[in-house]
């Protein structure tokens, strides 16, 4: 699928630059933080924003992102709040792609999801528990044709299946760097390099590597073989650990993202 979307345009315009996808959970610790935090990610050098949709049962996430989801839900965050945050962000930034990341059930529960998401300015979806076999039906009944569906490829994904996944995916492929949950410290650059070589034989889509990209040094090593990295837990931790209100949190976020950006080159 080669439509022109914010995501495809951004990936195409990177040139030699490696993509930095930055994740935070919407509504963590309160929805008032979300738009300033998104802007802070861009200021720090993020190319793509992955906005986590809080869910009661985040079965693929480690403790840090689980806790972020729980904080967001405890603060009363609803799906419409997430879309409203995207729309407010779009008032000042019309070029940074926004990908909602989360679990199917929160999307399935929405009426007119595709229209509302596009209207707000969402560009794509990463649904952790959506298999490519269900993608066609999911597009037809829920996601519509305009949003990019980003799929995950895992260390255990067979070669044949990589091709199936790539045929359903658009924007980029998200390579899960190890067997495990978000935030675990198990990434091996050699293993990632070997699998990426396999993936590139099956698809021309850019490949972004996530799970376990914990610091700038890891990011630097990963982008020697990947088109970009996704950083989540490290940023969610900054949000959880920084006291002093919105300004302090956004400053700390920008600084942390900049560390990754610096290590990956500009």
């Amino acid at each position, binding site marked *: 699928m080669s439509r022109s979307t914010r995501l495809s345009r951004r990936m195409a315009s990177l040139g030699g630059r490696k993509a930095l996808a930055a994740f935070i959970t919407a509504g963590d610790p309160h929805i008032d933080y979300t738009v300033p935090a998104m802007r802070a990610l861009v200021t720090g050098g993020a190319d793509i924003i992955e906005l986590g949709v809080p869910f009661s049962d985040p*079965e*693929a996430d480690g403790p840090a992102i689980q806790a972020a989801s729980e904080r967001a839900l405890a603060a009363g965050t609803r799906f419409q709040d997430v879309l409203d945050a995207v729309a407010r962000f779009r008032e000042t930034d019309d070029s940074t792609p926004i990908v909602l990341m989360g679990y199917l059930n929160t999307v*399935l*529960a929405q009426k007119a999801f595709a229209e509302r998401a596009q209207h707000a300015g969402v560009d794509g979806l990463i649904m952790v528990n959506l298999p490519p*076999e269900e993608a066609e039906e999911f597009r037809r009944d829920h996601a519509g044709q305009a949003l990019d569906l980003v799929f995950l490829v895992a260390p*255990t994904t067979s070669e044949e299946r990589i091709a199936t996944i790539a045929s359903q995916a658009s924007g980029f492929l998200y390579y899960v760097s190890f*067997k495990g949950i978000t935030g675990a410290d198990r990434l091996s650059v050699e293993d990632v390099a070997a699998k990426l070589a396999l993936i590139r034989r099956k698809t021309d889509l850019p490949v972004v590597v996530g799970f376990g990209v914990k610091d700038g040094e890891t990011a630097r090593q990963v982008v020697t073989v990947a088109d970009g990295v996704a950083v989540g837990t490290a940023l969610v931790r900054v949000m959880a650990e920084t006291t002093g209100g919105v300004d302090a949190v956004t400053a700390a976020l920008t600084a942390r993202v900049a560390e990754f950006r610096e290590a990956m080159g500009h």
Partner: protein
Amino acid sequence: MRKVVGNSVSKGSNYNQPSEDGHFGQFGGRFVAETLTAALDDLSALYERMRGDGEFLAELDRDLSEYVGRPSPLYFAEHLTRHLGGARIYLKREDLNHTGAHKVNNTIGQALLAKRMGKPRVIAETGAGQHGVATATVAARLGLACDVYMGQEDVERQSLNVYRMKLLGARVIAVQSGTRTLKDAMNEALRDWVTNVDTTHYIIGTVAGPHPYPMLVRDFQSVIGREARAQILAAEGRLPDVLVACVGGGSNAIGLFHPFIDDVDVRMVGVEAAGLGLSTGQHAAPLNDGRVGVLHGNRTYLMQDDDGQIVATHSISAGLDYPGVGPEHSYLKDIGRAEYAAATDDEALEAFRLLNRTEGILPALESSHALAWAVREVPAMDRDQLVVINLSGRGDKDIMTIARRDGIVL
């Protein structure tokens, strides 16, 4: 693309579900993180081979008869029948199995699969602790390492089973996230499995989860219905009018129902936990008061709010305290082959006491929900009608809970 059969299937005849890719109509499927797909493919392939493998089936049969103690009796509950004054009531005595519930039928089968996969470790989720005990039991016997995930709230209300699992050599991991009950234990077990998938088999305890679990757990539990069918034919010379079983995830119910599914004149009733009452929202009855969604790898009816968040459930019975239900039950509901009623905490307790006093049998609180349906409905039935109730487990584990409600400190 898969063939969509959906509601076009006639009411149960020549029933052949799930489809090759694990769908029961619109339900079921395999909605999991990509990392797990390969393990699920491997498990499916192995199971396809084993279900026709004479040696495997012989080993399974031998374990079920010599270790579990099958067949379990189908007991004519003469005194309960007389007390209620309606249909003749038979109890399928799964409470007499080794470890005290139907759960072991499945763990025996899955442990044999784990052994053939050469995986040295098994994990399980548990609510009331019966599945955890049944898993720890087979793990002890086969020399497998065993970790059981259990919500902190359940660890507290089922302390007897926690200690039992420890005696069996299992590690019990108390889960602190979310609502700290069965669903959160399942989340944590999935996180463990995705991390240790090379060395670990996840023994899911009910007919939920991603394909092939709903199918293979059903198949292992179907020994209940196969036996009951032969036993009622031997005792009465005909099939029963009604089958009744409690439904949390629904493994004991599907085990009883499945062998009767083409007998379209046999009515099948699943009984969910109505908790404090269906109208209060404080219950665990997704088939009565839920909406279709995706959780724990499958599409099914779920207890959720209008924003797609899974809501906290309530039941006096930890084993029914789950916001989802096996996808095949959702399918059987939608095609009208089975019906799903509900019983409140109070109704279950009343039935619990009644069975103790009339038959000298201590039922699990889960099974007491099925009994409660009978207490409500059987008096209006004809005396020549036959009802088979699945007594899925025994109630020793619940004595503390009930004593506490009575204000008694043991």
